[in-house]
C-alpha cells in the first residue's frame, strides 16, 4: 500500500500569537514550528498501517526550506521518504493544487492529512484534493482501517458518527482518536538523515483568497469573582446580568 501523508508546519500550540505592526503578517520571531497536531494523527496512523500490512509512507509538505526540520521529524517518526513542494503556502487552493498534482503522479492508495491546520484553520485542503483528483474524501475521520482494497472509516458527524466502507484510493482527514502520536527515538532520528527528501517545484500558483490583515481579539474586561460561600449567586448573575440563562 502506498500512503501519502500531507503535513503542515505550524506555530507550536503554546505560541502567543502576534502580528507585524502593519497587521499584514504573522510575527514568526522567536516562534517554534511543529508538525500540525492533526497531521500527526494522520502520520502515526499511516505508519501503523505500514507496519501491519507493508507498503510505504511518503510525507509531503508544501512550504519553503524552513519547514525541513519538521519534514525530517516525520521521517524520524517512521515515514520512508519525503517531498517538499517549494512554495510559500498562502491559500488552501494553492496547497491543494500542489498536493493533487504530486499525489496523482505518485499513484497513492491513501492520501491522509489532518482535519485542519491550527494556524489558518481552513478545514479545506482535504476536500479540494479529493475533488481535484475525483476520489472520495472522508472528513473528519476518527478511525481508519484498511482491508485489501477497501477502507473502513468512522466519520464524525454532528451528533454522532458514521461508519463508511469505501474502495481505495481516497482522501481522509484525521482527528482524535485516530492514533496516539509518537515521539521519534534516537535510531529514527539517525536514519531520518539518510532518507530521501526530494524538493520539487510548484505546479501553478493560483490562489483564490488573499489575506488583507490580521487582528487580535479585544482584551477581556476582567473577571468578576464570586465568593465560594455564595456560589449560588452566580446563577442569578448569569440570568439577570449576563442574560445567558
Amino acid at each position: 500500500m502506498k500512503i501519502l501523508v500531507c503535513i503542515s508546519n505550524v506555530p507550536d500550540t503554546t505560541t502567543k500569537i502576534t502580528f507585524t505592526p502593519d497587521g499584514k503578517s504573522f510575527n514568526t520571531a522567536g516562534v517554534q514550528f511543529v508538525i500540525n497536531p492533526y497531521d500527526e494523527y494522520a502520520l502515526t496512523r499511516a505508519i501503523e498501517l505500514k507496519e501491519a500490512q507493508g507498503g510505504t509512507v511518503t510525507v509531503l509538505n508544501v512550504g519553503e526550506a524552513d519547514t525541513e526540520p519538521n519534514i525530517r521529524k516525520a521521517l524520524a517518526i517512521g515515514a520512508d521518504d519525503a517531498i517538499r513542494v517549494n512554495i510559500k503556502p498562502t491559500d488552501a487552493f494553492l496547497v491543494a493544487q500542489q498536493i493533487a498534482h504530486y499525489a496523482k503522479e505518485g499513484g497513492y492508495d491513501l492520501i491522509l492529512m489532518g482535519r485542519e491546520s491550527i494556524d489558518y484553520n481552513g478545514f479545506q485542503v482535504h476536500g479540494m484534493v479529493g475533488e481535484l483528483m475525483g476520489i472520495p474524501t472522508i472528513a473528519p475521520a476518527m478511525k481508519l482501517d484498511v482491508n485489501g482494497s477497501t477502507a473502513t472509516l468512522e466519520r464524525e458527524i454532528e451528533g454522532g458518527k458514521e461508519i463508511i466502507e469505501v474502495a481505495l484510493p481516497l482522501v481522509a482527514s484525521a482527528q482524535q482518536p485516530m492514533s496516539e502520536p509518537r515521539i521519534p527515538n534516537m535510531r529514527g532520528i539517525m536514519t531520518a538523515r539518510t532518507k530521501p527528501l526530494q524538493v520539487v517545484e510548484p505546479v501553478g500558483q493560483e490562489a483564490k483568497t488573499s489575506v488583507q490583515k490580521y487582528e487580535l481579539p479585544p482584551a477581556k474586561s476582567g473577571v468578576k469573582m464570586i465568593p465560594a460561600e455564595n456560589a449560588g449567586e452566580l446563577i442569578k448573575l448569569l440570568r439577570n446580568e449576563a442574560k445567558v440563562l
Partner: protein
Amino acid sequence: MSVLVVIECANGEVKKSSLEAASYGSKVAADLGTTATAVAIGDVQPDALKGLGEQGITKVLLDNDKRLHDFVGAAYVKVIAKAAEQENSSVIVLSNSNIGAAIGSRLAVKLIASLATNVVSLPQINGSTFTVRRGVFSGKAFSEVELTSDKKIIAVKKNALEFDTTAGATATVENFSADLSDADFVAAPKETIKQSGDILLTEAEVVVSGGRGLKGPENWHLIEELAKTLGAATACSKPVADVGWRPHHEHVGQTGITVSPNLYIAVGISGAIQHLAGVNSSKVIVVINKDPEAPFFKAADYGIVGDALEIVPKLIEAAKAL
C-alpha cells in the same frame, strides 16, 4: 446573480446552525440587491422549510432523495452545484459544521470559487472587492480575507452573528432533483450511530465542561446534573478524554471540538492555551477552580475559587430554584 443558502436538516427539522446561515445569506442578498434561495438536503418535512421565510428566504429547493438523509459528500456537492447553476448563484452560504466544511471545499473546486470557512462577519463589499472576517490561529486571532474569484462560498461560524427573524413570513418550497446516480453514493455510510445524551455539544447554547480537577469519572454526575438542570451539553478537557473518563467526542480545544456557546462553564480545568483555543469565542465564560492562579481566570467573565466538589452542588441547587 443570487445568493444560495445550504440548509442542513435532520430528524424532520432544519438545524439551528442552518437558520443562522439563512439569516446571514438573506442579509448578503439584501446588500447585493438580490434574493436568497435555499437548497435543503437531508431528512426534513416540507412544512419545516416554509419557516425559513422568517430568516428572509423566499424560495427553498428541496431534494427529497432518501439516499441524502445520511451525509454523502459527493452527492451533496452535486445537488448544491446544480441548484447554484439553476439559480445563477454567485454567493453560496453554508454553516461551518463538519458537513458544511466538507461540502464547501469540494464545491470550491467544482465551481471554481473562493472559499472562506469559520466566518464571523458579514462581507464588506466595496466595488469589486469582497472581504470577510474569519477566526484563525485556533480562535487566538482574526483575519480579513478577500475572496478574489467571481463565485464565493462562505461557511458561517455558529453563534458569531446576530440572527434576525421576521415572524410569520413564509418561503415557498419547490421540489428539486439533481438526477443522482449510484456512483454518487460510493462513500455512503453503512451505519450511523447517534451520540447518547439529549443536547448536542456543537449545537448547545450552554456547555458545562469538566477537567482533571474533578478527580475521576465517579464525580461526573455533578457535571451531568448541572448540565441537565441548565439544559446544557457536557464537555471535557483533553486529558480527561485521553484517560477515558469521558468519550473523545466531548473533548474541546485546539485538537478537539471548537465550541462557541452563549455560556461555557469550566469546572476544574486549568485553562491551558490549547484548551482556551477551542472555547474562547464563547460569549460568557465561567471558571470554577480551587487554584486562584489558574490561567483560566484571565479568560473568564465570572469566577469562583473553590473545590468543585463543593461548589457544583450549590450551583445545581441554585439552578433548580430558578
